[in-house]
């Protein structure tokens, strides 16, 4: 069974969002998503400083199987990216919620956070997609 920590928010497209409480969030992909993708071998991250809107394609993760677009769950400005992933994309498989984070974002619209799913709703969403 995939690990879906409480306290995070989740998007339908399998990104997780951690509210850092200071107007910034950290974004990654869920354990369920990395399991579906298989071993990750390449990550293309956005540039720090770029402005993005919720739903924008802003990163690409490629596994041994396929390339997969990552969508920004929220609008804002990219603050930082996880440079470790350039050399160690497998961090996403090993630790999707800690070492495998993708980028941090200064959000522009806090209400977008409320539209995301909690852990229970996301678990159900992921199960529905499987069947």
């Amino acid at each position, binding site marked *: 069974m995939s690990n879906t920590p409480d306290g995070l928010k989740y998007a339908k497209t399998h990104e997780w969002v951690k509210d850092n409480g200071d107007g910034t969030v950290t974004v990654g992909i869920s354990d369920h998503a990395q399991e579906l993708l298989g071993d990750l071998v390449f990550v293309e991250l956005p540039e720090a400083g770029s402005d993005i809107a919720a739903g924008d394609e802003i990163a*690409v993760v490629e596994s041994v199987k396929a390339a997969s677009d990552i969508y920004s769950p929220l609008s804002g400005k990219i603050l930082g990216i996880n440079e470790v992933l350039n050399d160690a994309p497998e961090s996403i498989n090993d630790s999707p919620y800690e070492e495998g984070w993708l980028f941090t974002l200064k959000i522009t619209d806090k209400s977008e956070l409320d539209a995301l799913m909690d852990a229970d709703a996301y678990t159900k969403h992921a199960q529905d997609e499987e069947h």
Partner: protein
Amino acid sequence: MDKKTILNQTHHDLGARMVPFGGWDMPVHYGSQIEEHHAIRQHAGMFDVSHMQIIDLKGSDCKRYLRHLLANDVGKLKSTGRALYSCMLNSQGGVIDDLIVYFMDETWYRIVVNASTAQKDLGWIMEQVGVFGVEVLPRSDMAMIAVQGPKAIELTLPLLNEELREAAAELKPFSAVWDPSWFVARTGYTGEDGFEILLPQGDCVALWNDLADAGVRPCGLGARDTLRLEAGMNLYGQDMDETTTPLASGLGWTVALKPEERSFIGRGALEKQKKEGIPQQLVGLVLEGRGILRSHQKLYAADKQIGEITSGGFSPTLERSIALARIETGSPHGVDVEMRGKRLPVKVVKYPFVRHGKLATKL
């Protein structure tokens, strides 16, 4: 409903991620495709390849029939147990399938064809029998396990019965031994040493479990694909199909145009293509920068499209992306691949990329 091999429940019990493949429910990996890949390069791993179709051909005309049916010449098989890789062509020289044929005796040959093309192949093989005295016997009663890797043979031998073990220990590459129920061939699809074992379905799960107990790692079709790509082995449906000839698919070495009097299906078309010039070739590619080469990505030289990738992916052994590609004949310089709207430089290299665990080309 996808078909299930005799090992299907075993795969589920091992926690495999299952996918549909050629009409079968097959394991793509059991946790980590990359670790499975390394297990075969460095130690030993095994695949359930029971979805592949085993066909026995029996009768006094077997040899004559196969010399007509196949682009390679079974006449090269001088002693029993020897194996030959060949394409089976249509009259236009297109590849219906690639296969391995084993010479069992003067009236018995065994062939193994791909799962996804099995029905088409059987139809074609039966259709071509015509007046030849040949019986076509699909062996759906048998299962097949491929054990591959530098330790594969050493770990497998103790699990064979005594008589078979002694004979299998002496096997040369591309040859096989058998008893009335088991068949052991020193063949594979990974670029490593190992065995392919064809056996009654009833014996299969026990052998799989014994191999696992001996330290042979279960590996899925995902690792099988990256291993064969590194080994520079074509995959039917990707690197060649009915619209391409073996000559334009890097498989010229499998076409026996000599002796000239052997008239096999597709011969005329191949001779014509050879005379007029083979328009395309299969080459190896290495991506110089970051990213992953994938099939159908387009290739350019000096802004002119010269072909596309037929098989691409990440090479766990080389830790970079490699591919096979079909491009115009010639030696192009400055080849770029188009990846998500961007052009990135690739290097054209000789393949195989990897053999027996080591780099086999110049990067």
